[in-house]
């Protein structure tokens, strides 16, 4: 029976060649897409190191001389006091749990500043992000320390201007050492070698965004200097868990009455869900495009198999009838057709794996863990794409196979 199947596949090599070519092409492209999605999903599911649920960004504005309420001739100190006062009023608002200021600091922020963190001869990577924040900032986004420090404890540490925090992985890639072991040691920051700062705690890795890997996200958190308490700072708030409903509308409604401080006013309030969606739009778009591409390929496999096997069933009517009259069951006929499709897929998969492997080695696919190839990842992605195509083959063959099963032996053999 099996030998006969192979002989049959060989005899129909011409039309099978088309199928195998198509399966090969689709296998490779589909693997590429599956690999991309596999990588993105793995990265997405890594711990983020921050929490934006219930968080909002409050944008501040300052009155100009065109406004009747404008207070002229303010000193810089007075301007800073206005910002601090607004922050403090928000901190005391009943539905707000924490409020903090930052400079290029909030998550999903396209604006970054860099910093160097130097201990002895150890130096942080070039793209270490500097987050200058007011102490409560870490409470807003729920940063946590590697030794179990709570956001509240971290906030307490940031009250000292010579303390700083840094994510655990700063020296990991280059020197293989975790920052946890260097807590309470003295560091040089910002390229300044005249004074040292104390690493108060090592942070659980704070990722740059949902699609940025933890190992490649570096950051340090330091107290924001007095002079930076300004309009340009980012004012972030976390509201209490049950207070999300209409928070933006409520805050805006109160803004004129309660939160106009000197020349400073609340210009706009945005939720971090919104900011995140905006920040990740291009990744979301890419993901969706790949998803459509995948659908297109699978549908084509389905249609191709459906068409080809439809013809075959028509051609092999006599043969199927003969098989039936010799005791073949519906089941065995279906399995035979299916086996034919799957064998073809297996034949196409072998060169496909070879091409996939070469693509991965040429670094043309997605990056994860600093590489485009990993054994587990490769096996998984090849398997997933194989199963997806196999499913389409099953569905595609199902329809013609059912037709084949319905063949009435007597009628079909009548022609012979």
């Amino acid at each position, binding site marked *: 029976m099996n030998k006969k199947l192979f002989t049959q596949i060989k005899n129909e090599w011409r039309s099978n060649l088309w199928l195998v070519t198509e399966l090969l092409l689709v296998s490779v492209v589909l693997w590429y897409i599956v690999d991309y999605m596999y990588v993105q999903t793995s990265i997405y599911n890594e711990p983020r190191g921050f929490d934006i649920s219930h968080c909002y960004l409050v944008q501040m504005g300052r009155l100009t001389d065109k406004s009747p309420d404008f207070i002229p001739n303010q000193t810089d100190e007075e301007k800073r006091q206005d910002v601090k006062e607004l922050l403090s009023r928000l901190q005391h608002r009943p539905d707000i749990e924490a409020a903090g200021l930052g400079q290029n600091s909030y998550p999903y922020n396209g604006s970054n500043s860099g910093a160097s963190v130097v201990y002895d001869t150890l130096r942080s990577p070039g793209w270490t992000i500097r987050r200058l924040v007011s102490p409560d900032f870490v409470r807003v986004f729920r940063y946590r320390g590697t030794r179990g420090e709570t956001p509240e404890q971290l906030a307490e540490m940031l009250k000292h201007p010579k303390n700083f925090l840094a994510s655990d992985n700063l020296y990991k890639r280059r020197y293989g050492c975790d920052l946890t072991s260097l807590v309470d040691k003295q560091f040089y920051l910002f390229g300044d070698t005249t004074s040292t700062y104390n690493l108060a705690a090592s942070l659980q890795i704070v990722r740059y965004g949902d699609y940025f890997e933890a190992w490649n996200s570096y950051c340090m958190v330091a107290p924001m200097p007095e002079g930076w308490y300004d309009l*340009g700072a980012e004012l972030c708030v976390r509201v209490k868990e049950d207070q999300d409903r209409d928070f933006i509308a409520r805050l805006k409604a109160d803004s004129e009455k309660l939160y106009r401080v000197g020349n400073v006013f609340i210009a706009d309030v945005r939720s971090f869900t919104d900011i995140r969606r905006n920040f990740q739009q291009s990744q979301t778009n890419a993901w969706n495009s790949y998803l459509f591409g995948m659908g297109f390929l699978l549908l084509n496999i389905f249609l191709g198999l459906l068409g080809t096997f439809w013809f075959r069933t028509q051609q092999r009517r006599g043969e199927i009838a003969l098989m039936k009259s010799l005791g073949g069951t519906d089941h065995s006929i279906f399995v035979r057709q299916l086996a034919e499709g799957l064998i073809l897929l297996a034949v196409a998969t072998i060169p496909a794996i070879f091409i996939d492997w070469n693509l991965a080695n040429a670094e043309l696919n997605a990056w994860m863990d600093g590489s485009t190839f990993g054994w587990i990842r490769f096996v998984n992605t090849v398997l997933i794409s194989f199963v997806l195509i196999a499913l389409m083959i099953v569905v595609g063959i199902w329809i013609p196979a059912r037709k084949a099963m319905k063949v009435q032996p007597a009628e079909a053999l009548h022609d012979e």
Partner: protein
Amino acid sequence: MMNDFFFGIKEFGSMNTNMIKLYFKQAFYQLRENRLISLVSIIGTALAICMIMVIVLVLEVRITDCVPEVNRSRSLYMKAMSIHQKGDTSDRSSNGCMSLTVAKECFKALTVPEAVTIVSTGGRMRISVPAGKMMTVDNLETDDTFWKVFSFDFIAGKPFTAADSESGLPKVVISASVARNLFGTVEAVGRTVQLNLADYTVVGVVKDVSKLAVSSYAQIWIPFHSTEIAGKCWYDNAMGTFRVVILAHSEKDFPAIREEAERLRQKFNDGLQDSEIFYRGQPDDRFSFIFRHWGRELQAKEAYLHYLLVIVILLLVPAINLSSMTLSRMRKRMSEIGVRKAFGATANVLLRQVFYENLLLTLIAGAVGMLFSYACTFLLNDFLFSNSENRTQIGETSLSADMLFSPWIFLAAFIFCLLLNLLSACIPAWRASRMNITDALNQR
């Protein structure tokens, strides 16, 4: 041999009308006879055409002229600039928008272009009527040339003037929907609104602009000197919050403009002590502009290659399917081909027949695919047209008919159909033309 020759001539002579009609008739009959196969072929092809046309449509909407950006083809864009320490060879640099100083000295001072406009990156403002309605709107801060570079439909009033712009008078142009929302009418010229608590006079009302007009979209437009935005600058007063759009007299001036911009850049750098600004290949034409990410070198070649690869795959996969099915269908018609050959049909004639039969199928599928693609642009509007630039904006990504129904789009669709047809009919036609008569007649 003689017979063959005459038959060939005859077939060729009446080719234009009768034969083509006959081929199409026959093809149509074939389609009807094998319903499932026809359906499978048409759906597969239609899907491919649909996906390709969606890509083309999205690109078209982003690249070709549309109101108010009617001069895209002769515009150059400066989305971002970079600055680093003089002589720095590492890739460390500060990247972002430019300050007003750079915009003025390096671009506004250009003499070759027709006009240069300076536009803020845009943001939100609170707009209200004294003791009345309040709303949040997208704003742009710009100058008077903005209204020359872009062509807005003014429903009432007119743009702010050069004098307004220079002295930063509190004048504002608002969109029709904002006017209706605040005043209940578009006749708002001369009325006072409060923008972030400062009084402005409405000087013009324009038709709403789609968010797809990325360089000009806003809901209100004000002179940048009327706020303190110009004061927001850092890094030797070079970085700031502005972009520039340069309108050339014609595309041919692009090289000259780039050359002049380069001269101005060097002059500006000469005045800087330690740092220098650079543009990474900008100003960009429209295509480069949409693929420009600030802080990175432009990867236009990669973008082209990417599109090419995607379209090839989208054409190739269904073409293989179609080929295979056409071949199977031909196998069923082997005796017919045999008879035709026996009566002297040349290889050429048979080749043509297969092409025409296949063309009917691809054209039907093409029309279906085109319809699908229009449906997609409306149903998937959000996914297709939102990007991180316009995601936060409040307005709508409305599409106008003249963007979608340009003759170019139909031509493109037709070309892709032909391509697909060529790809998929090539091998079956060749096989049909080469078929041995006796084999064919014996159905071998």
